[in-house]
């Protein structure tokens, strides 16, 4: 089961109301390589992955939910004081018509989240390579997002998230090595 902790993994501060940036950040909320996809991908794959890797998928999957909460906090803080006129000017008129200022799981282009963003092949190497690719794509997305804002407070939180993707990718690569090593020893002894 899961227990909720009433704190963010890392502080999220924003220095201005910026609904346009919120609209771009939603990519990491409900986009293909976003935090929701990441959490659901790993926590679903773990049931059929070899024992040596279940702990890692459980822990990284759980951490992704903490990242999802950080993105939600950014979007909330960037839009909570925006007027309807400001939302419309930021390209969030269609979002406002459907959701007011509520968050929703869609990408930066407004396309709703879909389970086809994630894979589960049941082959441990295929699944882990998918996970490594997902982390690298998320890292790249964070870089584009950092490039799109001049808000240094927001950049600080985004840089933290970018670095987490680097660490996750590294751990998944080690998981691949562990499984390949294991397969080789089984073959020869």
């Amino acid at each position, binding site marked *: 089961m899961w*227990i*909720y*902790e*009433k*704190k*963010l*993994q*890392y*502080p*999220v501060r924003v220095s201005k109301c910026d609904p346009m940036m919120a609209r771009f950040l939603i990519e990491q909320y409900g986009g293909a390589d976003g935090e929701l996809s990441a959490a659901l991908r790993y926590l679903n794959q773990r049931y059929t992955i070899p024992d040596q890797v279940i*702990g*890692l998928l459980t*822990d*990284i999957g759980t*951490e992704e939910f903490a990242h999802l*909460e950080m993105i*939600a*906090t950014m979007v*909330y*803080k960037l839009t909570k004081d925006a007027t309807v006129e400001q939302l419309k000017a930021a390209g969030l008129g269609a979002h406002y018509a459907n959701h007011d200022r509520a968050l929703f799981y869609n990408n930066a282009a407004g396309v709703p989240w879909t389970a086809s963003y994630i894979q589960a092949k049941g082959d441990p190497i295929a699944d882990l390579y998918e996970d490594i690719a997902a982390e690298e794509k998320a890292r790249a997305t964070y870089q584009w997002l950092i490039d799109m804002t001049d808000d240094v407070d927001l950049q600080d939180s985004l840089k933290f998230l970018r670095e987490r993707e680097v*660490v*996750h990718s590294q*751990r998944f690569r*080690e*998981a691949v090595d*562990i499984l390949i090593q294991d397969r080789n020893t089984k073959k020869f002894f």
Partner: protein
Amino acid sequence: MEEQYYAMLHELQAVDFVLVELNLYLDTHPWDTMALQQFNEMAQKRQFLAAQFEQCYGPLLNFGHSASPHGWRWAMPPWPWQV
């Protein structure tokens, strides 16, 4: 929120960052005794800091993983996105 809230929260977040890092590292390096020792030391420090924070600002965890000695503060603001 007052200055102390952010200071105590920050201290806890810093220790938790070390713990997440060590946790994921140990997932793929379970025989690293140095890392394991660091993890156990930090886990103890974490417990101390969390208890201190909860004393001032209420429970951090739901479902009884934190006690609630001063009234039902769990469901009261501030929530993480509000600070």
